[in-house]
């Protein structure tokens, strides 16, 4: 295990950024977000970013190709996938787990090359949590917020940053940094995690029962009743990966790009002759069935949630996966 003085964290960032692009969680226009480090940019004091770390692998808008149309002819020039290595520092355990979930979708055959390139170019440096918010429930999903994983795990204790490489990429990163000293981190106090109000959530039930039982649960109607149909929960969610592919006529050609989409939107499945999810109930149900049932069914029981608590904080009407999971298990809303 390596160490670095927290008082000179800026120097560490400068050292990393000297070789590749570095993203750290920082306050930009008052909002914590993963931002490209530049001298002077300080880490946010917030526990986690408002938007999740998925942005760096699956950005909200991404160009796919540019077309030119002339007469009856069409030509394509594909967009370049990222070719520059980068480091993302300060990823929390929950967000780090979300990469696994995104991988299971984007890297499944045929792999999404844009995502894949970013994943390959990235070195993920995680940061252990010590002061969780009440909305945190990663522990109930088998995540240890104090052992966050990634290519390099970091801990902050007293005045020291402890770094532990977990992968070859991580080793390489640490090896490239000067003046790292050896050290052992002290045992952390984990008692606050035992006090988390949502720590005892149990998601195992959802793979235990038949899909249709959950689907036909009477609670959906009531739970979805006040849903505004906005995309806040999906857009701040680190595991939501739905996207739309759209064309933009620039006047000099057509740019095809993909952008985040939300299954909560009424036009998500709209076709020329209607939609198969006509009311918010079906859309709402889709989102949570996907997280709790469909995704685990298709991916060896892996729940599509990492317990980051963002949807608990951001939903305009305070509806969230915790309320849904509890209501489903109780069978009443």
């Amino acid at each position, binding site marked *: 295990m390596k160490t670095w003085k927290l008082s000179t964290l800026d120097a560490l960032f400068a050292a990393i950024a000297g070789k590749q692009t570095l993203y750290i969680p920082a306050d930009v226009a008052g909002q914590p977000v993963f931002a490209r480090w530049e001298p002077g940019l300080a880490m946010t004091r917030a526990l986690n970013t408002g938007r999740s770390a998925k942005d760096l692998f699956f950005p909200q808008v991404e160009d796919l190709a540019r077309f030119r*149309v*002339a*007469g009856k002819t069409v030509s394509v020039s594909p967009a370049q996938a990222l070719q520059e290595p980068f480091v993302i520092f300060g990823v929390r355990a929950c967000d780090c787990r979300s990469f696994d979930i995104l991988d299971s979708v984007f890297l499944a055959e045929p792999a999404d090359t844009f995502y894949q390139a970013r994943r390959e170019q990235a070195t993920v440096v995680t940061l252990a949590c010590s002061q969780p918010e009440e909305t945190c429930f990663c522990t109930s999903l088998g995540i240890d917020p104090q052992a966050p994983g990634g290519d390099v795990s970091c801990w902050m204790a007293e005045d020291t940053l402890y770094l532990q490489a977990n992968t070859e990429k991580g080793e390489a990163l640490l090896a490239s940094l000067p003046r790292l000293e050896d050290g052992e981190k002290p045992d952390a106090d984990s008692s606050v995690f035992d006090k988390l109000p949502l720590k005892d959530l149990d998601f195992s039930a959802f793979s235990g029962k038949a899909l249709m039982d959950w689907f036909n649960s009477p609670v959906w109607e009531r739970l979805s009743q006040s849903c505004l149909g906005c995309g806040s929960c999906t857009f701040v969610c680190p595991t939501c990966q739905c996207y739309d592919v759209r064309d933009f006529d620039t*006047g000099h050609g057509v740019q095809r790009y993909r952008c985040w989409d939300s299954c909560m939107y009424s036009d998500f499945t709209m076709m020329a002759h209607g939609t198969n999810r*006509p009311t918010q109930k079906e859309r709402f149900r889709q989102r949570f069935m996907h997280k709790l049932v469909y995704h685990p069914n298709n991916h060896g029981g892996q729940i599509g949630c990492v317990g980051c608590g963002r949807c608990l904080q951001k939903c305009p009407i305070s509806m969230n996966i915790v309320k849904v999971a509890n209501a489903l298990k109780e069978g009443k809303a």
Partner: protein
Amino acid sequence: MQRIGVFVCWCGSNIAATVDVETVAQTLAKEPGVVFSTDYQYMCSQAGQELIQEAIREHRLTGVVICSCSPRMHEATFRKTVEKAGLNPYLLEIANIREQCSWIHKDKLTATQKAVILGRAAIAKVQLNAPLTAGKSPVTKRALVIGGGIAGIQTALDIAEAGFPVDIVEKKPTIGGKMTQIDKTFPTLDCAACILTPKMVDASQNENIDIISYAQVEKVQGFVGNFSVTIRKKARYVDEHKCTGCGLCTEKCPQKKVPNEFNLGLDNRRAIYIPFAQAVPKVATIDPNYCAMLKSGKCGVCAKVCTAGAIDYKQQDQLITREYGAIVVATGFEPIQLDKFDEFAYSQSPDVVTSLEFERLMNAAGPTGGTLLRPSDGKHPHTLVFVQCVGSRCDGAEKGKSYCSKICCMYTAKHAMLTREKYPDTEVYVFYIDVRTPGKNFDEFYRRAVEEYGVHYIKGMVGKVTPQDGKLKVQASDLLGGRQLRIDADMVILAAAIEPDKTARPLATMLTASMDTNDFFTEAHPKLRPVESPTAGIFLSGACQGPKDIPETVAQASAAAAKVIGLLVKDSLTCNPCTAKPDELMCNGCSSCEKVCPYGAITYVDKSFRGPNRTTLIRRVAQVNPAVCQGCGACTVACPSGAMDLLGFSNQQILAEVDAICR
């Protein structure tokens, strides 16, 4: 896929001298959708038009772009051209490369580049043009005139003379309006009744005219050519068909103390009455507010004396619904209430009168038999003070009106002159801000009053009138003399401002005709369409549109009639196809569009829609009547949902032009 043809006109050398037309045609040929592109010397010539038509047929064109002079010049020409070749006339766009390009630029390269861009914009737009068909709506060949004053009578007579049936709705028991109360008319000083009453008789005897008196418009539906109007004919408790107008009942009625509105309350009438001797229809009316029989069931004298058996105490209001092709508003004016002008002591002294009351006092058929007597003591007045602009041209308009009532200068000159002529022993003062006498023989008339009749015209305003010791103490300022005046007057006559009749505002709402802030009806165009309301099929006659004297009123009345006749001779109306069109699926029924429509073309209906899961959803949605919509597009921007679009100038089309220009 569109198949667009592009035709670049040289306009002789008008375009070709500054724009390289060949390059334009060749460059535009490469635009998406363009399958044919050429240039020619004169596209608007016979040969040019044939060239276009041939290309339409040969290349199966689905749209045509002509790069030429302004569409204001030849759009109609070219629409006909393409229509003859079997293409919808609205699948044509014109790029204005003459007025807006070749004529304003000198550099050929610049002008050519610009012409290409303008052509591109037209191509981009025409790609999205939809074939439009002008709709037709039938015309009901009958007109309604609301208001039976001189304006309404003249309009009705002119329409009737042209052979169309016309109904006059008059709220009073007789037609004739304000002019019946006037004694003499300026600047000729001929007798008002002598020129008006023959017209009233003409109207009553004209086969094409139906006078519905003592009635009011209750409801208006429909649109130009197709109005359906419900009229409430108030019960007059006298059978109009039986009553001979002999007037016996009005002499025998025991209720004698009813203020006579015809004489503005200066004398009394009976509870059953005929407003005046020449009333049309000459039929008695029972005033239910005063008739003892109607109020308490005791009396019945009139029924006993009526030999025709016309009295019917059980008569009810009657609702008549009729169809009309055009509606003329002739609701006229009334003098304003003077309760806010206490400084003139109008409410304190009966000797302070309005000009209209003065008319009655001077009228041979008036309460004094034509002898000028003070209302307070019946004595002959010696000093008369006329005050101009009472309530007219007021700043801020809190107290009166901001506008000039227009007629006061002239009738005051008339009053002063008549007074001095009949009673040379009188002193007549006129206080004015300005004397306004534009009009044929008007200024001569005014100068006669001053020069021949010795009327004292004083520029200045009367500050206060105080009744004291049987006199009216008038304090005034003489602006030219720069002094304060005190006059002991016997009578003060106030030239009260005129305002639209009170019934005009609710009527305008029913008609969806717009009004200005003073409740005068707005004309469709202040210069070019002065007798039409912006609402199609509604016409304006007389003072309802603004203050007017009699000749102006009559002129406008005839003009309105001419417009009505022009409408009624048509069997059907061709509608402008470039109208607003709501997308019912997008419309949320919020009424924003309706509020900005100057024509009242937008209405709402509750419609059923398929909801999710086989449910039915009833929603309020906007509907545009294409026969009424003129296509301004105000609604399209007012609509927050983007549900309202304008055919021919749709959002997509304009955006396409923007894109093409900015590219």
